[in-house]
Structures are given as C-alpha cells and as structure tokens.
C-alpha cells in the first residue's frame, strides 16, 4: 500500500473514532448540561419569587380561605410554581426529579423545593418545577446539530488531510517514480529535488550518491573488461597466427606438426576460457543490447538445424514439439542462440548412443515453457545445485571442457529474466526448462 493512502486512511480512521466517541458521550453530557442550566434557572426564579414575597408579603400569594396554598402553572404544564404552608419545623432545600399530578395527568418535573419562615412564624414550602420533557427536548435538538457539525468537520478535515499529504509527499512520489523507471543502474541520471522537506532531500541525495557509486563501479568494471580483453587477447592473437604460419610452413617436419597441433589445442582452450569469462562479464555489465524481438519457436528450430548433424553422428534422435508461438519482444538473438545451443549440445554430449532428445515448448498460463529433455547420464541429485558454478566440471569425458558452458547459459537466462529449472535423474536423463516471461 502506498504511503499516501496509508496516511489518509489513518487520518480518516482516527477522526471517525473521535466522532463515534463523541456520538456516544454527547447525549449524557448534553443532558447533564441541560439539567444544570435548568437548575440555575430554577434557582433564579426562586430568588425572584422570594424577592417578590419580601417586597409585597406572602399575602400576595396566599390569603385566608385559600387553604394556605398557592399554585400556578402555564398552559402547557411546562412549568409550575406552588407555595403552601407546612408544619413548622419542616425543612427542605433540594432540587430533584419527581412525578406530579396536574389536572389528572402525571408529568415528570425537575422540582426545586425550599422551606422558608415568615416573620409571623409560619413555615411555607416553595416549589418551582420545570417539566423534564421540555428539558430533554432542548437537549435532543442540540445533540442533532452537534452531530451534523461534527460529521461536516470530519469530512472536511479528511479531504484537507488528503490534499495536504499529497502535496507534502509529492517529492517522495517523484523519487519513487524515478526509481521505477530505472532498469539498470547504468541508466540512472541524478536529479535534484525541489522541496522544503529535509528528509526527502536527504533521501534523494543519498540515492543519487549511492547510484553514482554503483555507476562508477560499473564503468570501472567495463574499463577492466576492455583492458583484460585487449591485454590478454593480443598475445593470444600473436601466438595463434604464429602457430598457423608454422603449420603452413612446407619445411616443417611431420613429427613437429603434431606438436604444433597440440599447442594449437592448448591455446584454443586458453582462448575459449578468456572469451567465455569475457562474455559472462560483458552480459553482467550490460554491454549487450536487447533490441530485437525473438520468436522462440524459430530460435529453437534454428538451434536444432545447426546442431542436428551432431546428433545424427551419435545416432541420437532429436525431436521438436513446439506448440504455441511466443515472441520475446526485447531480446538478443545471438545470446539466446548461444544459450540454447549449449544446452542442446550438452544433451547430445552426455547422452547415450541411440538416445533421445526432445525440445518441447508450450504456453503455461502467461509464460512460455521451453524444455530440453535428454536420455543421458543425468546428474546426481546433490550435484544439481552446483552445475552452474564456474569451472565446475561434472563429467568431461574428453577433458576439453572448460566448465563455463552452463554458467554462460545461466547468465544469458538471467539477462533475459528467464526462469531456469533443472530436473535430473541419474542414469535416466536431464531436463532443462526455460520459462519465458510475458513480454
């Protein structure tokens, strides 16, 4: 998952959590606040009633014949005020919820109760009430608006976060994009990054400098390969031409000719080793191009045509069973040819007389499998992991092998991103399979 998506998701998740928490906590909180407000209002009213009583006397509310009680409530029974005479000695100063019956209807009120004594010695109980339904109604409305507001805030901040993180992470996205474009360190070009975020500048500079070092090493290696190539191949070249001139010298005695042929073989071996090592190094140093499409079926047919006579010599049947057409778009034909030639050549070399070789190819899901199966001596199981090691000669019946054939095969396969698998049963045969990726 990309960093920006992660950040946005995290920001959204944290905000939604807070929102949920608020939604859960808000009702009791609002209820409490509403209750407290009501209590304050009840107290204010109490003070005003007491003030009126003080200024105008209790008679204003209670006169003889009223049974010593006063009561008043408004039309919708939302509020009431009552004053009644109680037994002296009764004391109350509370605010609590209680059920009251008003005109045959039971309503729950928040009620402030207070006893007070007049100068005459009578004790009165003052009760001021407000219906709880009214209080809750106010709370519900508040809660609803608070919720709308919160949802709006969350949505707004999530979008702002998204946009902001996109802007902030843009240099980072750029670095990632640049890195994705690089197929090989050789193609990397150091670029500056325009951002005010120090971390990204540090990251970009580090990548630039490390890539620079890799490129430098690659160039050094290239130079080295060039030098080795020139300095070793030149003397070999001199020796080879000198031997050839000696061989064609008519005055050369016959018994010396055979010695010269031996020298020629030894020199050829030295030349082959150097050329094989140079080939591997050059491929690894990306000095070969992959600039032509290669039809795998055609390639296999070309190799088989080139090598068929060698199989005939040993009476080995070389069969082809190539089912589907497959084209590797960016490839190097001559390298692939060398790769396949070496594998089929091994299949001939390590086969028994009258043996069989099958070159088969078919599409498997979205890859193409090219397999070379022989009926040869096979490879002991414990040796299979080592067959691609350089200079590892498993069986060299003629003693001429330099042990670099399979390393070349592996290097070319890796260069083309082919998956190479080897299955072998001792004394029964070996199968090499190349899995060609989708182009």
């Amino acid at each position, binding site marked *: 998952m990309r960093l920006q998506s992660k950040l946005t998701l995290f920001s959204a998740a944290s905000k939604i959590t807070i929102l949920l928490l608020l939604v859960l906590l808000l009702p009791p909180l609002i209820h409490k606040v509403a209750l407290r407000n009501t209590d304050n209002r009840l107290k204010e009213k109490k003070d005003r009633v007491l003030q009126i009583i003080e200024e105008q006397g209790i008679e204003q509310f209670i006169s003889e014949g009223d049974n010593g009680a006063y009561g008043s409530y408004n039309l919708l029974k939302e509020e009431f005020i009552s004053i009644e005479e109680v037994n002296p000695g009764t004391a109350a100063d509370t605010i609590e919820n209680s059920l009251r019956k008003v005109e045959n209807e039971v309503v729950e009120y928040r009620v402030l109760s207070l006893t007070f004594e007049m100068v005459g010695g009578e004790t009165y109980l003052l009760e001021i009430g407000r219906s709880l339904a009214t209080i809750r109604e106010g709370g519900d409305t508040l809660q609803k608006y608070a919720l709308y507001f919160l949802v709006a805030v969350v949505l707004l901040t999530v979008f702002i976060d998204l946009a902001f993180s996109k802007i902030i992470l843009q240099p980072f996205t750029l670095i990632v994009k640049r890195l994705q474009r690089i197929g090989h360190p050789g193609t990397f070009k150091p670029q500056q990054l325009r951002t005010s975020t120090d971390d990204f500048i540090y990251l970009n500079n580090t990548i630039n400098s490390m890539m620079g070092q890799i490129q430098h090493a690659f160039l050094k290696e290239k130079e080295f390969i060039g030098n080795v190539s020139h300095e070793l191949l030149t003397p070999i070249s001199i020796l*080879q*031409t000198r031997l050839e001139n000696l*061989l064609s010298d008519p005055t050369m005695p016959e018994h010396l000719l055979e010695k010269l042929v031996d020298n*020629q073989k030894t020199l050829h071996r030295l030349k082959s080793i150097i050329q094989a090592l140079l080939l591997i190094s050059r491929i690894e140093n990306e000095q070969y191009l992959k600039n032509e499409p290669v039809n795998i079926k055609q390639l296999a047919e070309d190799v088989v045509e080139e090598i068929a006579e060698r199989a005939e010599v040993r009476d080995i049947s070389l069969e082809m069973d190539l089912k589907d057409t497959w084209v590797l778009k960016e490839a190097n034909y001559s390298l692939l040819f*060398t790769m396949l030639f*070496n594998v089929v050549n091994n299949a001939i070399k390590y086969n028994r007389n009258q043996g069989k070789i099958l070159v088969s190819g078919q599409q498997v899901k979205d890859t193409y499998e090219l397999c070379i199966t022989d009926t040869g001596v096979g490879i002991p199981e414990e040796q299979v992991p080592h067959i691609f090691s350089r200079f590892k000669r498993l069986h060299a019946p003629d003693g001429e092998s330099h042990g670099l054939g399979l390393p070349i095969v592996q290097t070319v396969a890796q260069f083309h991103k082919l998956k190479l698998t080897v299955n072998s049963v001792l004394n029964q045969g070996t199968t090499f399979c190349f899995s060609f990726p989708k182009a």
Partner: protein
Amino acid sequence: MHVLIVEDEVSLANELVHFLSTEHYKCDWADTGRDASEKIAVNLYDFILLDLGLPDYNGLDLLAEAKKLEHDPGIIILTARGSLEDRIHGLGLGADDYLPKPFSLLELQARMQAVVRRKFKVKTSVIPFHNFELDTETRKVGHNGKEIALTKKEFDLLHYLVLHKNRILTRLQLTEHIWGNILEDDYDSNYIDVHIKNLRKKLSAFASTDWLETVRGVGYRLTI
C-alpha cells in the same frame, strides 16, 4: 593485390605480413595512425586491415579517412576490444567486415576473398577443382554439371578446403570455421572427421577423392 596492415603490435604485424606475402599479397605496414594516414593518402591500396586500438589515433577516425578515398578499398577491422559498440560503429562507418582478435589467418583470408568478390564484382562465382565445381553464390556443388546434395556444414567445409587448397587445415581450424561464431563449452574434433567421411562418400560416387588427403594426427588437405 596491395594491402596496408595497420597494427601497432609488431609481432602480430610480422605474422600477418608473412602470411599474406606467401599468399602473394603485396603488404605495407603502418604501426601508428599517423603513419597509416600518410600511407593511405599516397598509395592506392586495394585492402586495409585496420586495428582500431592505435596508440596515437582513434581507429574510427582512420576508418572515416579511408572511406573518403575515391578508389574505395576493402576494409576489414581487426580489434581485440571486441565490444559491441566498436562493431556497430565500425560496420556503420562502412567497414566491409569485422574480425575480433584472436582470429585465424585462414579466416582472415577467407573474409578478404569474400570482400574482394563482393567489391570488385567478380563475375563468376564458380570455383572448379578436379572436374567438380563449387558455386559460392548458390552454395551448390556439382560434378560435370550434375548436382551433388551436400548439407550446409559439408558445403562450408568443402568451400574452406577449396579456398585454402594445398594447405594443411587442422581439425581445430576447420571446427572454428564451422562453429566458430558460437561460444561453446568445448570443441569436439570428431564431428569434423564424420563430416569429412560423409563428404568423401558423397563425392566419390562421382569420381575419386584422392585429392582430399588425411594428414595423420594433424588434419586434412585438399590438393590441386
């Protein structure tokens, strides 16, 4: 045929001069680019063998100079660097062929002859030998007009032997010519013996093949 050998390695130049002289080429040798540049300006060479790695000169510049010459000599590049860019550049700049070092002198001569045929428009492509004819153009071999069916490798072998007639060719030289472009694990000279055996069998159906000699322990020779 007048050949200029541009090569800074004295020993190699000596071997080249020796070989080409016995093949009746008239050879000049330049060991520096400057020397070569002067020589090509003065003399009309039919052929220039050019080593790209010269101490004082970019070999490709020299190639460009040679390409400007009016009489259009055949040019073969010889180089030990053998990098891909060199090859592409060299052929792109108009060299007729490219031979990476180390090369066989026989291969060089074969390439030179091919260039000469192409360049100087040799009319006939048929080489006659012992009542047989070998057509390098159509790649066919016949005996008094009757065609003999040869495989590709058999034709290549016979062609090489005819080209280097009266000379011993070792099995290794023949192998390198036939399979040389492929870098393989080892070389097996037995294949050459089998090809020669088959070749003799096919040709002797028409006439004796005594002229294709086996030189014991060394190789083969086609005498004319």
